[in-house]
């Protein structure tokens, strides 16, 4: 449209009057069509000034696309003050009435993108002055683009966080693997040295072999934990269900925890009633082991209560500690993969236990939840359906 000139609208003289009138109408129709069929919203506004300051404006004209772009009917808008149509504009921190009023005042066009809060939509717009005291706006709804950009930005932040957690996990995994490796190397080298110094003390050798076995178990557990990650990620966590009593399973696990509980200075108490169901024994033992391990790790020298009960077709396994509790911030991400409490920096751990536990419980069709308050300990509840088809 650049360079196209609007024909003069001055009334012609004498006999040429009707021809001039027709030309005028033709021109009017031509520009009306351009205005009406513009594939963008267009509106012409008159600014209301008070003491030379723009305080409001009135829509005097709007094209058809205006309605599609705004969802407003022209009949509801034209001739009315903008603050009546969109009251939110008055409290708009960007001060759009003043900015657009200044376009009408100074003639300096502006391009901008802004959120019309009353409509909940983003617009990309250009405002210019067609004549003093007025401004015209050409605009397009760009809400979808903004939302897509926002979603991409949020996804990017999430990816960066996941990436950071993965790095932390690799570092923690390396740490957890190196400590038993260091013990294994020292013990095997010490054994070799003992043997070169004549017949060794059998008791000492037995103790070293036992220590080596414990470290091998530790490495085995770690490697299985890592394999579990790939199994779950690949959707290959398969359950081997059997008919079993959850109370019996809990008692077995607690027995294995006697030494660890003694080292932690915590008394672990079991209150259980027989609850039968078809579950995967090894996987549920893993869940209880993870939860007990955490309780002893994060709440040492405090009692831990384990309860098994049946209710409404569900089996409930509850592990309650009396430790420092879990902050709401950590609670929100506790069951995520690679999530570790801040204390894990000194207490160790891969940040997999609760995540794997949640996956195992979910595979059984159950749920795992936590209740906790600062200083009041934490209660983990595993709910499992008792019968599955």
């Amino acid at each position, binding site marked *: 449209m650049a360079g196209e000139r609007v024909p003069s609208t001055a009334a012609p003289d004498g006999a040429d009057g009707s021809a001039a009138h027709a030309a005028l109408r033709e021109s009017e129709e031509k520009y009306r069509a351009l205005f009406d069929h513009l594939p963008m919203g267009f509106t012409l506004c008159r600014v209301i000034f008070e003491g030379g300051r723009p305080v409001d404006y009135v829509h005097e004209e709007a094209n058809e696309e205006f309605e599609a772009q705004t969802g407003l009917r022209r009949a509801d808008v034209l001739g009315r003050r903008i603050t009546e149509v969109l009251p939110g504009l008055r409290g708009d921190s960007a001060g759009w009435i003043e900015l657009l009023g200044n376009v009408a005042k100074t003639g300096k066009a502006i391009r901008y993108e802004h959120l019309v809060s009353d409509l909940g939509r983003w617009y990309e717009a250009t405002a210019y002055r067609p004549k003093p005291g007025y401004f015209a706006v050409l605009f397009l709804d760009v809400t979808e683009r903004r939302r897509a950009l926002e979603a991409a930005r949020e996804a990017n932040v999430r990816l960066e966080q996941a990436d950071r957690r993965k790095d932390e996990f690799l570092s923690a995994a390396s740490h957890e693997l190196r400590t038993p490796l260091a013990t294994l*190397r020292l013990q095997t080298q010490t054994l070799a040295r003992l043997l070169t110094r004549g017949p060794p003390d059998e008791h000492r050798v037995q103790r070293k072999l036992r220590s080596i076995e414990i470290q091998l178990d530790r490495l085995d557990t770690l490697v299985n934990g890592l394999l579990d990650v790939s199994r779950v990620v690949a959707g290959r966590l398969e359950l081997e269900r059997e008919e079993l009593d959850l109370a019996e399973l809990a008692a077995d696990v607690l027995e294995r925890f006697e030494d660890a509980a003694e080292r932690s200075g915590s008394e672990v108490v079991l209150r259980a009633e027989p609850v039968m169901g078809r579950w995967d024994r090894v996987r549920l033992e893993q869940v209880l082991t993870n939860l007990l391990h955490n309780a002893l790790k994060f709440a040492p020298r405090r009692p831990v209560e384990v309860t098994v009960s049946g209710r409404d077709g569900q089996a409930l396994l509850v592990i309650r500690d009396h430790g420092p509790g879990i902050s709401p911030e950590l609670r929100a991400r506790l069951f995520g993969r690679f999530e570790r409490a801040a204390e894990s920096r000194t207490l160790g751990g891969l940040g997999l236990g609760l995540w794997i536990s949640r996956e195992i419980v979910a595979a059984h069709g159950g749920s795992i939840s936590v209740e906790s308050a600062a200083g009041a300990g934490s209660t983990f509840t595993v709910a499992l359906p008792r019968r599955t088809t």
Partner: protein
Amino acid sequence: VTKKLLIVDDDDALREALADALALEGFDVECCVHGADALARLRAGLRPDLILLDLMMPVMDGWAFRAAQLTDPALAAIPVVVITAAGPLEPPIDARHVLHKPFRIEELVGVVGAA
């Protein structure tokens, strides 16, 4: 004169393996389970020639122990060899030497003997 060592490590198995290996090499070895434990023993009069210090420990970690040790004039001069499973140490720590797990006995004995 037998060199006196203090091992500070929360990992029972590694602490025992270190103590046994070093005792076999003729060192006089004492053990503590975390930084606060070691600090209490030192303040009670224990005077090792060298401290073997793990970093990631509950109650008081290696960094906090080292900071407390350096502010105590009676303890500040005791040299420290850090034992770690971490890669680059963050934050860095002032130590005579850093041993990265898993190390060989020869390396351990060499570092402890020289420090």
